[in-house]
């Protein structure tokens, strides 16, 4: 178990600092249980669940507003995040800020902070970064069409048995498993 974690942490070709040995991750069922409690608390307080893509949409609306506030307020997509000219005062964006701090704290405590590029032993850094950009672009488009991502649809909708969310989840895994063979050199 310990050796496999070390294998995941340090992809081929990366210099390994002996100073910091990453502590193992927690049991996935324990993490899932805790994440479920966070989701439940979010529902109990706000009446809505978690989200992540909305934070990115808020930043996009802000950027559009720098060029033209009129356009940002009128565009069918930006308008939803425009918030009368203060798109950065977005609930989901502040949630993302919390995610950043929470993950940083957890990573530092577990000595898992790494300035690194995650990739398989056969993938070059350049190729991996190009695919990361392309993947981010595609995932964002998909999340916009589906009206949510792994957070907003799968977790949030799944837990109230939202039919569309369950369809979304099946579609995500079907597509990713279907493509896994074609991009195996990026990861294996």
């Amino acid at each position: 178990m310990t050796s496999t974690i070390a294998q995941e942490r340090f992809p081929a070709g990366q210099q390994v600092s002996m100073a910091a040995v990453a502590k193992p991750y927690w049991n996935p069922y324990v993490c899932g249980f805790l994440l479920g409690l966070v989701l439940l608390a979010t529902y109990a307080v706000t009446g809505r669940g978690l989200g992540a893509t909305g934070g990115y949409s808020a930043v996009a609306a802000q950027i559009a507003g720098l060029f033209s506030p009129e356009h940002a307020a009128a565009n069918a997509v930006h308008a939803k995040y425009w918030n009368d000219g203060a798109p950065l005062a977005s609930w989901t964006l502040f949630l993302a800020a919390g995610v950043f701090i929470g993950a940083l704290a957890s990573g530092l405590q577990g000595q898992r902070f790494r300035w690194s590029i995650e990739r398989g032993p056969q993938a070059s850094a350049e190729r991996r970064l190009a695919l990361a950009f392309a993947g981010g672009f595609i995932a964002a488009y998909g999340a916009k069409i589906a009206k949510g991502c792994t957070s907003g649809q799968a977790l949030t909708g799944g837990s109230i048995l939202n039919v569309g969310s369950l369809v979304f989840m099946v579609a995500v895994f079907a597509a990713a498993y279907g493509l896994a063979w074609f991009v195996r050199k990026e990861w294996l």
Partner: protein
Amino acid sequence: MMLPLASSMEFSVVADLMLAVVLGLGFGFCLERAGFGSARKLTAVFYLYDMAVVKVMFTAIVTAMAGLFVLSATGILDLGELYVEPTNLAAQALGGIVFGAGFIVGGYCPGTSIAAIATGRKDAMVFALGMLAGVYAYAELTPGIEGWIKDTAQGALTLPSVTGLSMGWFVLAFVAFLAFAAWGMSRLETRFAGLRPAATM
């Protein structure tokens, strides 16, 4: 007291955003603890040698679902006050396929990309730039999709509302399925252990 709180009390804007940060702390902590700040750990699920993504997601969903059911059955929480995103089967199927492709190619999903950036992953920073470009392009190039999704939606549909069965039956079914899946996933991990990339240390 009746939950959700937001239905019976008004939060100030500042309080609302501070609440978001606090809930985000828990969210981010769980993601990083589970290993989801690493693209290799996340994509491992698609090569079957490490099923942590499904274990965490499914356990979280079942936990929240059971919690919502118990709180509602005991009269503490009103399920009718919770927001249900309207279902649009075509949009969620198509969007899900596109999203899944982006996930395996990019290595992250939107939430985990933030946890990965926080722990130094440069590829996650590039993924985030790609996402920003993606949402921007969606708004500028295809704003019409937004209206199509709204106009063709089937409405707020949940399994209990569609089938007429109580949520409790689905909680039972999901718990049973999780137990079965946990057994199946441990078998998969043993069977595909050879796919785990070798260390070069």
